[in-house]
């Protein structure tokens, strides 16, 4: 503890080195999963649709007729060079798919995360602070119910109520057809694109389309925050330093707001990181429910077409994103809390 070898820089280096085996194992797992499947990717996606000779030709062209280990080494090399492959069914490079549809997912998950943090932190802190009162009861019940609610069910109910019944908000897609057709894409993040062009009406339209999916996904994710923050507050309130602060005569309000809450919120950073994986899973469902053209929905449609290379490429990117986020979270944590740098 606290010796020479525990500087922040050294911790970061060790952490980065640990990423290498993790990424390697993930890549291997994905490769194995996709190859354990019966037959080869080409026959699976094209089988029955084109003549057998054609399948053989494409197989040879893409190198699927070679021994598995050769394919494996080449696959690793490609991924390391940032080449995630090309979809068979529509010949789109995975990189393009990530760029175009990834922006839609990013926009959705970003706003969902904001909703989740605001709702989750508020309810979590209140429930933990007023433990065993009706506030706690209400907060916990809300947390449990929202966790028990599948995101697609909540989305469906929101569509029924705000879309069909009240008619306030659109229930499908990222923008109205007209806006979608005329929109100039700079970043593919529609809220930013419309702001760049100072197109007020289009911006309002895009935001309206964003509200239901983002709030749905955000609320469901908030359940995780509520539960964890509540337990954290309860744990922190039992700590010695809280007792010490009270003993020093600091008034209860200040003890709770300045001493307890601040420490109870440090682990939230970690949770935000863990939630990214959850959000990505939720995004697949939310995008399918709201017909949101993000990566998740794209993945599902490639799965339906049995396009193995596309599925493989998208999954690798998902996995890499999760690993990258976990590294960033560890860095932030180490920066904030010196005890972590063991």
């Amino acid at each position, binding site marked *: 503890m606290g010796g020479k070898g525990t500087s922040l820089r050294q911790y970061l280096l060790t952490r980065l080195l640990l990423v290498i085996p993790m990424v390697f194992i993930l890549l291997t797992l994905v490769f194995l999963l996709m190859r354990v499947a019966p037959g080869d990717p080409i026959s699976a996606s094209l089988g029955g649709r084109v003549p057998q000779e054609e399948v053989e030709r494409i197989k040879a062209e893409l190198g699927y007729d070679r021994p598995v280990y050769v394919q494996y080494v080449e696959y690793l090399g490609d991924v390391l060079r940032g080449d995630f492959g090309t979809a068979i069914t529509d010949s789109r490079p995975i990189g393009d798919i990530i760029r175009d549809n990834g922006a839609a997912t990013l926009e959705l998950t970003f706003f969902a995360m904001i909703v989740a943090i605001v709702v989750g932190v508020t309810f979590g802190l209140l429930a933990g602070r007023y433990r065993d009162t009706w506030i*706690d009861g209400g907060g916990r019940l809300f947390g449990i119910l929202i966790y028990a609610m599948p995101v697609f069910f909540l989305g469906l109910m929101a569509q029924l109520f705000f879309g069909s019944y009240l008619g306030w908000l659109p229930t499908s897609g990222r923008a109205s057809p007209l806006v979608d057709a005329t929109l100039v894409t700079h970043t593919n993040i529609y809220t930013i694109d419309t702001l760049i062009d100072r197109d007020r009406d289009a911006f309002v339209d895009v935001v309206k389309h964003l509200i239901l999916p983002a709030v749905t996904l955000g609320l469901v994710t908030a359940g995780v925050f509520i539960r964890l923050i509540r337990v954290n507050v309860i744990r922190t309130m039992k700590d010695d330093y809280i007792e010490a602060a009270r003993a020093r005569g600091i008034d209860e309000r200040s003890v709770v707001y300045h001493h307890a809450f601040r420490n109870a919120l440090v682990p939230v950073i970690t949770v935000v990181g863990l939630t990214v994986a959850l959000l990505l899973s939720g995004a697949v469902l939310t995008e399918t429910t709201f017909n949101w053209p993000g990566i998740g929905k794209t993945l599902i449609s490639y799965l339906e077409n049995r396009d193995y290379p596309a599925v493989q490429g998208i*999954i690798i990117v998902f996995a890499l994103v999760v690993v990258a986020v976990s590294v960033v979270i560890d860095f932030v944590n180490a920066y904030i809390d010196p005890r972590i740098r063991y």
Partner: protein
Amino acid sequence: MTVPAQVERVPPRPQRLVGARRAFAPIADARGMTRWMLWVGAGITLAFILVALLAPVLAPYEFDQFRSPEEGRFVQLEAPSRDHLMGTNVQSTDVLSRIIWGTQTELKVVFISLFLSISIGVPLGLLSGYFGGKLDRVLVLVMDALFVFPFLLLAIVIAFLLADKVGQGIFTAAIAITVVYVPLYFRVVRNHTISIREEPFVEAARALGAKPFTIIRKYVFFNVVQNVPPLATLNAADAILTLAALGFLGYGIQPTEGAEWGYDIQRAVSDAASGIWWTGLFPGLAIVLLVTGLTLLGESLSETINPVLRKRRYERVNLAPPGVAEAELE
């Protein structure tokens, strides 16, 4: 009301099932909201288990029945009526019957997947934690890799790959869910085993010359396995959500194999635009209710078993002055 001045203390009778009593003691000790959550959760869970068992008696129709001798072919998308309490869906089947039969499907899948993931995850965790070394390092890396993977994607990919070979039935769904949860049990059991391994009583057993497997079986296992019931209950809740998600995306149970709530909700999405609510609302409520029940049960179990969160019954300690008699033990 007169209170006798002296209460005769009945000497404790020798009790049978001491171990079981001790294991359940924290549950009897649970107070306040935890106790309430425990009973409500257990009640809901039990009710669903009963519905699943009695499905043949309770369900008015078969899960895929779309005509009856009396009515002929059922009307498509009929609003809730006396014949169909929750209406019919786009395939003319009875929504209520699908929910009741669906209970059976959900519980079967959850049961199989929990059984599989516990019987794989727990032994691996014990071995890995107790022996350490290279095996441990490799297992931890693989499990961590599986763990960071977005769980739903993992389940989808497994279900997708198995669909070709095994078909899309209860077993495929259960295996897809198992793969997601094995790393969880592995992690919890391994970490706990590592801390138990260094306890004096294990040290003592080792000093007496007990074989590693005897130590694991007799000393480590029972200490570690305590964590499993709350975890498994919370897991069951999560597994229901995962199964429903698989069904919603079309990688769950084939409609010909059984009724499944997530699949029903997927079919209901296209009804929503025309304001038809009964096809989606009821299966969704079934999911919410069952998952809520399991979560309440699991959370209250872990609160009663986890000493950090446990609130015990306050024993009255009589100190003068009587105004401050209730001493907080925590």
